[in-house]
């Protein structure tokens, strides 16, 4: 983007003034506010023309109607914690922040579901549900700040996906404003429902390109009574992966099974040191939940499996504070990577669990061949590895080698029968590799669907599809 584009308004003044009539002081066009909504956790920057803070579905609807009339992009944004640039206004336009649509509308303790607005922070829902003895399982590492709307749009998964599944598995129904400005209600508030096409699932994971979620009905479970967390240290990635397979073979279903390589551990060590057994080359974080007896017994079996696979040490906690302490290592990794190098190419591939060891071996070899630093951690239980290629961002040759490495990782992943994104979505980061996975027909069908929901390409243009036509014609 040219330097000037950074400052210039792309939207016509008439559109802005119409928005002003609608939103009053909740329309912000100062450069300062626009800068604050120009980034997400990818670190990339695109300046919007304006930011709005709607408080209900009707305001969202009016916005989209205006956008169709004046042809400006509308980019929904929750907490801006996305890792694929989904909330970045790459073609300018309006960032629609859901920060002020943050009410938990209802928690139905009889039918076990919650109705929430999209700006509710995931952890807030988890905490409120727990007060009723209920459980909302999805737990992305960003749960303390990411929003339900963002989680739904990205179909976020987390540590507990190995046992409980991902966001998709908890969305019963949605209310969303389509690209036409129509308000669509999908799904059910019952445990079952099979009437017609599954529009709910269409919108889940659609990255804000099909509709703007204004309300969601989410399934809740009874809250497990107890949980036990284990942190096992191994000398290398191979042993840790071996332990993962041993756990699966023992037919235990942990509620978390997270792997970290040595570099990942070291990143966190710099900030919050913890004592490591001599020779630590990797770590595995495991959790089991259920009744106290059950959790304790399963934890014993996990510990056994780890030791049998050569664990150097296994730490264990069943109280909240102790568990939190063990979790800290895992939760701090992603942001702490900043200390390794200023720029990270952050990929979240998934391979069949049985191919994990092969993938790790491939990554080690790749790192050597391309001479770039690669840090790996992730949800071993799902075969989901966060592959972080760390570069300075200032060395053109290094950047080229890193880009090549990314492409190789994706090719290898698809070849192994995996997927190029387990949770972060396509956004702008993976758009170039999108077709590699879904194929030309997949792309074509998806584009036709996009046309049904958003004929004028108002919603979040420039995402997922590489050659998305710019909104302005």
């Amino acid at each position, binding site marked *: 983007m040219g330097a000037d584009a950074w400052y210039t308004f792309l939207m016509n003044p008439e559109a802005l003034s119409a928005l002003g009539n609608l939103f009053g002081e909740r329309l912000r066009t100062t450069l*300062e506010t626009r*800068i604050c909504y120009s980034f997400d956790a990818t670190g990339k920057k695109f300046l919007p023309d304006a930011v709005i*803070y709607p408080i209900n579905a009707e305001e969202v609807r009016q916005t989209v109607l205006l956008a169709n009339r004046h042809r400006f992009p509308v980019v929904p944004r929750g907490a801006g*914690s996305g890792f694929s640039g989904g909330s970045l206004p790459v073609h300018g336009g309006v960032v629609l922040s859901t*920060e002020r649509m943050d009410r938990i509308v209802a928690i139905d303790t009889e039918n076990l579901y919650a109705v929430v607005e999209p700006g509710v922070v995931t952890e807030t829902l988890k905490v409120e549900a727990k007060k009723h003895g209920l459980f909302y399982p999805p737990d992305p590492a960003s749960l303390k*700040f*990411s929003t339900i709307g963002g989680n739904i749009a990205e179909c976020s998964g987390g540590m507990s996906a190995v046992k409980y599944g991902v966001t998709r598995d908890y969305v019963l129904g949605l209310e969303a404003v389509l690209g036409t400005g129509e308000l669509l209600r999908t799904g059910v508030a019952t445990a079952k429902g099979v009437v017609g096409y599954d529009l709910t699932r269409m919108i889940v994971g659609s990255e804000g390109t099909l509709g703007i979620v204004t309300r969601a009905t989410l399934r809740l479970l009874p809250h497990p009574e107890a949980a036990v967390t284990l942190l096992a240290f191994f000398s290398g990635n191979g042993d840790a992966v071996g332990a993962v397979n041993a756990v699966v073979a023992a037919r235990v279903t942990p509620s978390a099974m997270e792997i970290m390589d040595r570099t990942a551990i070291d990143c966190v060590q710099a900030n919050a040191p913890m004592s490591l057994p001599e020779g630590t080359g990797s770590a595995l974080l495991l959790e089991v939940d259920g009744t106290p007896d059950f959790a304790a017994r399963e934890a014993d079996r996990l510990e056994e499996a780890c030791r049998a696979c050569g664990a150097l040490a296994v730490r264990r906690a069943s109280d909240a504070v102790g568990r939190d302490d063990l979790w800290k290592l895992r939760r701090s990794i992603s942001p702490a*990577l900043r200390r390794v190098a*200023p720029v990270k190419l952050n990929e979240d591939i998934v391979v069949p669990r049985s191919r994990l060891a092969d993938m790790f071996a491939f990554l080690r070899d790749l790192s050597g061949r391309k001479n770039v630093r690669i840090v790996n951690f992730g949800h071993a239980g799902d075969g989901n590895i966060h592959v972080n290629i760390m570069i300075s961002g200032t060395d053109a040759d290094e950047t080229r080698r890193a880009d090549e490495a990314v492409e190789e990782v994706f090719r290898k992943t698809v070849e192994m029968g995996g997927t190029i994104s387990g949770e972060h979505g396509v956004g702008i980061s993976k758009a170039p590799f999108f077709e590699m996975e879904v194929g030309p027909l997949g792309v074509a069908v998806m584009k036709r669907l996009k046309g049904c929901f958003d004929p004028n390409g108002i919603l979040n243009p420039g995402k997922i599809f590489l050659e998305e036509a710019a909104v302005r014609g």
Partner: protein
Amino acid sequence: MRAKAIVKDADLKALTGLCAKCGTCRTVCTLYPERKAEIAVARGKIALVEAAMSGEDGDAEAVQEALTDCLLCGRCERACPNQVLVEEIVMKGRADLAEEIGIPAWKRVLFGKVMTSPSATEIARKAAAAGQRLLPGKIPTASGLHYRFPDGLGGEGRTVPKLPAKGFLESLGKGEAAAGEVMLFVGCVFDHVFPQVGRAAYETVKASGKSVAVFRDAACCGLPAMVSGDRRSAAECAEANVRRLRAAEPGSIVFPCGSCLLMFRRNVFSLLPKGTPSYDDAVFVADRATDYASFLLSSGVLDRIPDPPPGEKVGEIGYHDPCHLTGTLGKGPEAREVLSRAVGPAFAEMAGADLCCGYGGTFNVRDYPTSARIGENKVSVAARGGTRVISTACSGCVLQMRDMVARTDPSLRVVHIAELVHQALFRGDGSGLRR
């Protein structure tokens, strides 16, 4: 292209460069629930500083305004997985912008002329005390009279403490507490506004049996000037203080105010250039500077508290964590230990103990309604949890929370822990230590 960098500090680049824009800081920011906009959060402010450094944002006033909208409570910094020094970034950013466009006139006079000179502070207080009699609407609280601030002056519903005719230092005899191995740094608020706190701190420290001097020629610690971006005035204050403190050669320096302590334990070092005599003086002071509670614990004073401690109701007394004292300097357990020993089971952990009180120094002046909403929430969370007496150890927190209880529930009390220790040591039944 309007590429004029309005923020230039070279250190800033290194500091902001660590921010991964992850958003963790959104979860803890004191201001965020009030503003619900990214510009209020550390991540947004850092983005603005970056834009200002690169010349992308050239509107100095607007950036200054955004950076001023922060309580400097440091909660973001403590939650940040990358240990980004947010307070430092905000303060440095403010300083650079102050250099570029200045600071508001009222702040300039206050920091440049009044606070650097002890006598001027005193004159200001006397003038204020005299003027205060003209304020309407006295309202009673448990801790004495408060005045209701006239509405329409930007401080709607604000109450201000009744200023005493005499400050604490003034009430001491001329040669009293002039020299000693322990030096007490009272701080202007506990000298001029709440002299009873100054006195309680002095007498309880003296009960250690050590010889105690009171630091009389104190200039303001410099924190208000520093946070406003007036680094020159702040450095002047700091220099004058560390020079005089060192000259007095104390073995330790006790601070009843967490904010003053933060200044001498941490902030002065970014004001005074390394290698200068002032810097050495600052190191001398920092090595000896200690918070009130830690001093008491190490001094044996608490052993002299008669058993059983005087009877408030079980669980009635709570402790509020001053952001800087507990958060930044990590001094939280000490005050709790002091309280347990001084008041026994009357002390219980307070609901929302670590929530910021919303004072934020000049933030309270700049946006009183917001400051008050945060503060009212703070004290009402505590009250709902059963706390009736909120104790703490920072002058700003005492000021703020006294205002808040006056506004919401005047039956609550806000005290400095020194007042409770004093009560325990010198209680009237003859069993305690008596003067």
